[in-house]
């Protein structure tokens, strides 16, 4: 179930993060971003989801990576796309009956809606209006569709939790 490129982490990961029966494994998340991945997906455990997180585990490709396993939930393409903002190297494994039945990389979406908060206090989306935030995804960063503010770094800090 684990990473098929990082040969050394197979059994070791099984000890740290158990296999799931059905659901999604998000692999190759940049080290330290796992909790932001959960936040961007709106998963906080309050609905009883079974979630396993491995943080800063060794990886050939990323040196250190995080892994998130969500039991009983298959991520939609929209959710996967949004993940790309903070985990551009992530691979998504959809698991059924302990078998990976789909594996794909994330692709940046053109627009993300209702996920990030605009950091510009002068933006109308911060004023209690009945409107979701909307950001255009740039090559490097995101841009508020309403006020035009561009954010290049610290996108995870904008996650609307």
């Amino acid at each position, binding site marked *: 179930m684990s990473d098929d490129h990082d040969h050394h982490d197979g059994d070791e990961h099984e000890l740290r993060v158990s296999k799931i029966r059905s659901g999604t494994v998000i692999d190759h998340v940049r080290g330290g971003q796992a909790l932001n991945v959960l936040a961007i997906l709106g998963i906080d455990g309050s609905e009883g989801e079974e979630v396993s997180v491995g943080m800063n585990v060794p990886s050939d490709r990323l040196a250190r990576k995080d892994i998130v396993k969500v039991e009983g939930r298959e991520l939609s393409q929209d959710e996967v796309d949004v993940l790309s903002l903070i985990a551009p190297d992530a691979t998504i494994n959809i698991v059924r009956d302990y078998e990976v039945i789909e594996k794909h990389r994330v692709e940046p979406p053109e627009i993300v809606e209702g996920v990030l908060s605009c950091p*510009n206090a*002068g*933006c*109308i*989306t911060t*004023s*209690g*209006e*009945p*409107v979701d935030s909307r950001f255009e995804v740039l090559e490097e960063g995101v*841009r*508020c*569709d*309403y*006020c*035009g*503010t*561009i954010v290049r770094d610290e996108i995870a800090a904008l996650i609307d939790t």
Partner: protein
Amino acid sequence: MRHDHLITSKQLTRGDIETILDRAAEIDADPSAVADRHTNTLLGLLFFEPSTRTKMSFETAMKRLGGDVVDMGSVESSSVKKGETLADTVRVIEGYTDALVLRHPKQGSATMASEFVDVPLVNAGDGAGHHPSQTMLDLYTIRENAGLDDLTIGIMGDLKYGRTVHSLAHALTNFDAQQHFISPESLRLPREVVYDLHQEDGGAGIREHESLEEVLPSLDVLYVTRIQRERFPDEQEYQKVAGEYQIGSETLEAAGDDLTIMHPLPRVDEIAPEIDETDHAAYFDQAHNGVPVRMALLDLLLSDDGAADRLGGGSDE
């Protein structure tokens, strides 16, 4: 693309701009020809910030087209004071009127409001964002005085918060214009605007400066904006820069004879009164041009005879 709303100058092509300016010129030449063109038309004025000239200019424009206006009055006397959202306000007032003009202190307010209404909506200033109808009258004035191609323009003052500057800079990328932005370091163009300008014209026509001296002799137009005292953390910081960006007779010794000086007004002390009587001064004409230009805009947005389709070449993208 057909435009049902005017939110930013970024949405306008060169063709759109020329359509608006040409229509304004027709109206300017013979205002009486359109005196009853929009009778029984009601324009809603939603000004969430104080405004005198923009508001009166729209009011005059609508009345000169034969229509009328309703005005929500001051924020203090409106339902906004009770906590009503902007989204609710525009949805209510669109039921009373045929078009809306919105000024609001928040950036992006016009974009958001336009998503809640079907009647045409014109952004009359959204915080430090955009002010596209001002840009149209600015372009009209520039075209009359210096032409819009092969133009070298200096835009000076508070470029960070100046929404008229942001809108004008975007619009000018449609033309063969060299733009020189002159400001204190702390009031430079927002990075977002610079990013767009580079996207729009490859950045070839964009330069930033701290001193007017180095570019003044080459300018056809100098567009001056007010450096706002309240933007500076302390009075000393303001005093350091304010004097550097004031225009007097001595300043203009290095300028070309044909230099046109513009200002969106109101001014405080950026342009000395002695300049008013010179051939350089275009700012009062600029303000007066607001009426025919806004008449043209309203006419194009309100007409059901295909005029709106001409804004963008008539194609429904």
